[in-house]
């Protein structure tokens, strides 16, 4: 399967087309990031009865550019007690995976007709790379990105960044599990790890011909919600921004950073937000799929990209909405939500989807199957609650002994 661009061997045209795609992806992500920073500030301002940036350019659109330019010309500080090599490496380690992760996102192509576009006489996917392990690649990149945050905190030689780094590690370990388990539902339903294939699976008309065949519906909404919540935590965005809790940790892991190195962290954070939104769209909302009309270039180029960007903006808005609404979680609440709610829920839902699939494949009686599932769910929830309560009793008893 794979990109038809590479089917007939690699020639000059293929290399040039690939380079063009690299360039476009790079620029698109940078522009999207710039837009996202502005978008977030504007939306949050609207929610808080303020105006938001409106000085640089029309509606303040160039504010990010101005801020970036300012940051680049600031003094670059290296703390005395910092680990010099790791301190320099950390921002790069944060920003490179953020760029790479976006490479697997299909940003266009009419998936009702194969999902390819024609570029200089060659058929190709509108995504930089379509590795057979695309989703795993994304998880790997977001995992490596955490090293940037963690090492930045550790190498600063300062206590608050260190605390921020430790928090980042714990948070990502906790939420990567829920993220992965909600992804597993998608993989189970679509039977592939390639992002292109996952989008192609969602392309057809769904239930009743009206409701789209998106994974949001097919996997039953819950994995999508878990993915969104776990994704927010993975991004260290509010309400999960304990890593850079200003009130507690000065600035968090990036306290000691300034100038372009700080800008890189900032960039990585917002690029990850864009990538995460794009991933939600790809995995659960059918990526660029949607109704298309018109002649050839409009049908395969304009509409899919339009639908993709529209869905992307919706989720960017959701992330901003989270920030505008929810106060930051306390550390124990964060861990509770991750371990006691999201992971069991994601795992349970995954098993449920699996059971339904097996039942359908084997032709079992639907009523009996659903009865059995209900019994199992009730038993599992009860057991989970009992174990949580037992653990709490044990903790309280321990606290009494120690006190």
């Amino acid at each position, binding site marked *: 399967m794979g990109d038809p661009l590479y089917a007939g061997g690699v020639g000059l045209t293929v290399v040039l087309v690939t380079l063009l795609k690299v360039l476009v992806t790079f620029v698109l992500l940078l522009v999207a990031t710039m837009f996202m920073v502005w978008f977030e500030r504007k*939306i949050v*301002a*609207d*929610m*808080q*009865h*303020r*105006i938001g940036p*409106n*000085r640089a350019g029309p509606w303040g659109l160039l504010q990010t550019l101005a801020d970036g330019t300012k940051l680049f010309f600031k003094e670059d500080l290296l703390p005395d007690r910092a680990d010099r090599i790791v301190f320099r490496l950390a921002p790069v380690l944060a920003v490179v995976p953020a760029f790479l992760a976006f490479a697997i996102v299909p940003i266009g192509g009419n998936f009702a007709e194969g999902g390819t576009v024609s570029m200089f006489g060659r058929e190709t996917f509108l995504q930089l790379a379509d590795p057979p392990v695309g989703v795993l690649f994304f998880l790997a990149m977001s995992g490596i990105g955490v090293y940037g945050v963690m090492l930045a905190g550790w190498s600063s030689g300062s206590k608050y960044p260190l605390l921020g780094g430790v928090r980042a590690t714990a948070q990502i370990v906790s939420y990567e599990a829920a993220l992965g388990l909600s992804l597993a539902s998608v993989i189970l339903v679509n039977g592939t790890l390639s992002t292109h294939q996952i989008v192609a699976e969602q392309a057809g008309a769904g239930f009743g011909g009206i409701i789209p065949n998106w994974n949001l519906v097919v996997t039953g909404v819950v994995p999508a919600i878990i993915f969104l919540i776990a994704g927010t935590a993975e991004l260290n965005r509010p309400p999960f921004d304990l890593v850079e809790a200003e009130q507690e940790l000065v600035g968090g892991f990036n306290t000691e950073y300034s100038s372009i190195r700080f800008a890189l962290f900032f960039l990585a954070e917002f690029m990850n937000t864009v990538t995460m939104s794009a991933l939600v769209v790809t995995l659960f909302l059918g990526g660029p799929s949607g109704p298309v009309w018109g002649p050839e270039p409009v049908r395969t180029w304009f509409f899919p990209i339009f639908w993709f960007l529209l869905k992307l903006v919706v989720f960017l808005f959701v992330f901003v*909405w989270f920030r*505008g*609404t*929810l106060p930051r979680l306390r550390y124990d609440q964060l861990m509770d939500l991750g371990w006691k709610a999201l992971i069991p829920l994601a795992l349970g839902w995954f098993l449920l989807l699996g059971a339904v699939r097996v039942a359908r494949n084997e032709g079992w009686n639907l009523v009996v199957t659903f009865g059995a599932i209900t019994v199992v769910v009730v038993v599992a929830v009860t057991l989970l609650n009992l174990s949580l309560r037992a653990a709490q009793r044990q903790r309280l008893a321990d606290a009494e002994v120690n006190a």
Partner: protein
Amino acid sequence: MGYLEGFAITWRKFARGFVGDDIVTTEYSAGTRSGRHDEKRPKPERFHGRHVLNRYEDGMEKCIGCELCAGVCPARCIYVRGRDNDPADPTSPGERYGYVYEINYLRCIHCDLCVEACPTEAITESKLFEFSFTSREDAIYTKDELVVGDDGRPKRLPWEDWRVGDDEFTSGWVRATAPQGSAAYENRVAWSGELGYGVRAPEAGQASESATVDPGSHGHGHDHAHDGGHH
């Protein structure tokens, strides 16, 4: 579900803010945007801004070099030296005049005590507060810069950003209050005339004896009722 209610609230606020409703921020910057100046909120009547040194209608300076302003200044930012008037060509109507008058705006806290202390309404404040300078020399305003021009208006220095209304009512007239501190005190006009304007008419509530306000209608009769007796 408390969280969901919160989302509804932020959504409503967003919807109103998006169409420009309900925004509490007022546009303010001393700069320009796409070629035009920002509009600013009107400033209070008795705003404490940059000082001016006033002159009488005939062009004479009101400052008599008494140094009371310098003495009362808590920030010690005023430096005054008086000198005897030349009898043939006096600068002020009195015996002496302010020969040197300097205010250091790096120290001034705009408390207005100098204005209160001045016996001749010589020093008052305009409503200008946007005068960011780029050197310590510019920060020290000299007498030439502080004294009003021949049209009776404050001089505009290159680094100052005057807006409409900033240079109106900068004289002692706008500060005029009754000795007991009530703006509604009604008595004869006690403020001096000024260059370019003459003696200004009183505001509402500062009417002179001849004004058509019946003093018995409220204040006086009310006092009677409270005292329970008569004078």
